[in-house]
Each structure stands twice: as structure tokens, then as C-alpha cells.
């Protein structure tokens, strides 16, 4: 005990300093270390959350890229299909138009043919009538005989019959 007294031991001061240390311990634990630990943990959690979100975003980005690629592929294939369909439709329409034009041309040609035929017949008829008239006039001139209306008609009729037989 003497050794302790020689180096200044005093139980009252030792007790007071012991209690004061406990007060400091409480203050540091409650008001310093606690809040510092809390803020560090909060930051760590925030960082972890951020990293997790970043990873999540990266995954989502990959998914989105994949989806975009698939969508582009699908769109391309759809576009190709539409193009092919459009080409088919166009080809069909062109073919249809060609057919129609061909039919119309054939009809026009046929009509023209028939018109030509009609004209030819009409012209032939005219020609026969005129020829018959000329024949009648020739007969009149040769026979010096007056050809009246009925005779003219008869001669023309006969001339037509002859011509028709020759034809």
C-alpha cells in the first residue's frame, strides 16, 4: 500500500476518475461511435444497393438489347415477308393487267376484224350493186333498148346472182 501511496494513489481520486471514464465511455459509445457506425453502415448499404441496382440495370440493358435485336430480326423478317407479299401482289396485278390488256386488245382486234368484215361485205355489196348498175347500163347501151325501172332491177338481180355464183 505504501508503494501505491508513494506514486500518488488516492482512492477518492481513483474512484472519481474511474466514474469519469465510464461517463466518457458512455458519451463516446452513444454520441460518437454509434452515429459514425450508423452512417458507415448506411453508406455501405447504399453502395451495395447501388451496385445491386447497377448489376440489375446491366442485366436489364442486356435483356433490352437482346429484345431489341430480336425485335429488329422480327421486323426484318416481317419486312421481308411484306416485301415478298407486295412483290407477289404486284406480279399478280401486273399479270392480271397484262391478261386484261391482252383480252381487251383481242376484243378490239376481233371487233376491228368484224368491222372490217362488215365493211368488206358492205363494200362488196355496194360494188356488186354498182357493177350491176354498170352492167345494166352496158346492156342498155349494147341493146339500144330502154331499160326501165323494173328491167333494171331484174338485170341487176340476175347480175348479182351470177356474181354470187362465181364467188
Amino acid at each position, binding site marked *: 500500500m505504501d508503494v501505491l501511496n508513494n506514486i*500518488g494513489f*488516492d482512492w477518492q*481520486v*481513483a474512484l472519481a476518475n474511474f466514474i469519469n*471514464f465510464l461517463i466518457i*465511455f458512455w458519451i*463516446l459509445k452513444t454520441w*460518437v*461511435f454509434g*452515429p459514425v457506425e450508423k452512417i458507415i453502415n448506411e453508406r455501405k448499404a447504399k453502395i451495395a444497393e447501388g451496385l445491386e441496382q447497377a448489376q440489375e440495370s446491366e442485366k436489364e440493358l442486356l435483356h433490352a438489347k437482346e429484345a431489341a435485336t430480336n425485335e429488329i430480326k422480327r421486323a426484318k423478317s416481317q419486312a421481308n415477308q411484306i416485301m415478298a407479299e407486295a412483290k407477289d401482289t404486284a406480279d399478280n396485278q401486273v399479270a392480271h393487267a397484262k391478261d386484261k390488256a391482252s383480252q381487251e386488245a383481242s376484243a378490239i382486234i376481233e371487233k376491228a376484224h368484224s368491222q372490217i368484215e362488215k365493211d368488206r361485205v358492205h363494200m362488196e355489196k355496194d360494188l356488186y350493186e354498182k357493177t350491176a348498175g354498170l352492167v345494166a347500163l352496158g346492156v342498155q347501151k349494147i341493146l339500144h333498148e330502154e331499160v326501165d325501172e323494173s328491167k333494171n332491177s331484174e338485170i341487176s338481180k340476175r347480175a348479182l346472182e351470177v356474181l354470187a355464183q362465181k364467188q
Partner: protein
Amino acid sequence: MKFGLERALTPIQPDVVFTIGNFKVANSTLMILFLAIVFLIFGLTYVRKFKLRPGKLQSIVEMIYESIVGLVEQITNNREHAKKIFPIIASILVYFAIANVIAIIPGLTDITYNGVAIMRTPTSDFNTALGVSLASVVALNIISFRSYGFIGYLGTFFNLKGVYRGFKKSVMDGFMGLIDLFVGLLNIIGEVAKVVSLSFRLFGNVYAGQVLAIIIMGAFAYGLPVVWTVMSSFTGILQGMVFASLVAVYYTLALKPVEETTKE
């Protein structure tokens, strides 16, 4: 021409500033109270406003905090144990580091009341070192008690179970058990020795540092004391760290090993 500056040696006895009834209030006690107020103001005004995005001072405080956490984890080698004992170890470290350095503030130890300086480096008073050492050893016994349980805790001092099991096995093992029992009894003295060793080491280092500073100042008052003051500040922080590390080691030894806890 005189280069020295004569100053009285810091008395080894506590300087009693005043008494409350019969209870003495020493200047080291007042200094500790002053430190408590400083810590409280720091905690309430600054730490409370800490943000997720730290400023310069916050970064420094967090860096110190992380360093202490790292030190405790390194000593205990176990995260759970480190978490358990961190507040007490960190308190000891911060308290001693600042207490050993705060007396550097010029004029702080020159304020007197009734001719007695009202502030003094707390650790240069043996009672401070003794108080903290005693608190640490009491706390580590409480932790040990909580870790082992009542029977287990008593078993660390009186290992009768080991003697019984030893003799049950063989006579040789029985004698080994008796040796363990004796070593366990020595642990009781070891607990007292921890208090003595911790308090004497700290007090001796800090007080010797102060005495040496006064002697250097007496021989050469210009330039050299500044170097010595810087060095003693560093030593003061180092002493705080040594004290805290030793207490951490004692705590780790007082706790039940993790393997045993897992087995149970």
C-alpha cells in the same frame, strides 16, 4: 546568458483543486470532465450532422474509426468478438490518445485555482491509469462471465472438473489436472497483475515523459522542447494504442473460443 527555463516538476501526488464535503476533486478529474464535455459537444454538434457524402473532417473521423475497427479485428481475429469489444477498446484508445495530447494546448495547464493548476494530463496521475485499468479488468471479467456462464467462469479459476476427469482417466492425467487447478488459481493473481501492469506502464511512460520534458526545458528552452513535445504527443497516442491493444488481447483471452461456442 541563460537558455533554460526553470519549471516545477509535475507532482506525483494528485493535485486537489477543491473538495466537496470530504471528497477530493483533483485536477486530473477536472481534465477528464473537460474531455467528457469536449466529446459530448463534438458528438452532439458535429457527429450528429454526419452525411452519407462525407466532408473533410467527417472523412478523417471515419478513417480513424475504420482504423480502430481494423486494429480490434486484427487483434481478436474474429468479427463477432471485435464487434462486442469495439466500444470499450475504441473509448480507451480515443480517450488516452486525446488525454495524452491535450495538455499541449498552450496555457491550458497554467490556469490555476487557489494556486493549483486546474488542468493536468490525466494519465500523469496514477489514479486515472488505475481507474481505467480497473474498469477494463472488471469489464473483461463480466464479459468472460457472460461468455462462459457461471460454472464455466468459475471453472477458469477452479478447474476441479479437469482434476476429476484426469483421475478418472489415469493417475498421470489426474496430476496434470492438479497442475491446471494450480494454474487456474494463479489466474486470480493474474487478474490483479493485469490492473497493476496496465496502470503502472501507462502512468510510468506518461509521467516520465513529462518529467523529461521539464528537464529538457530546464537545460534548453528554445527549439528542443518543441521537438520533444511533438515526440511526446506521438508517444502519448502510442501509449493509448498499446493500452487499448493489451486490453483487447485480455478481452480476447477472456472470451470463450469460437470453436467451443460452435461445438455447443
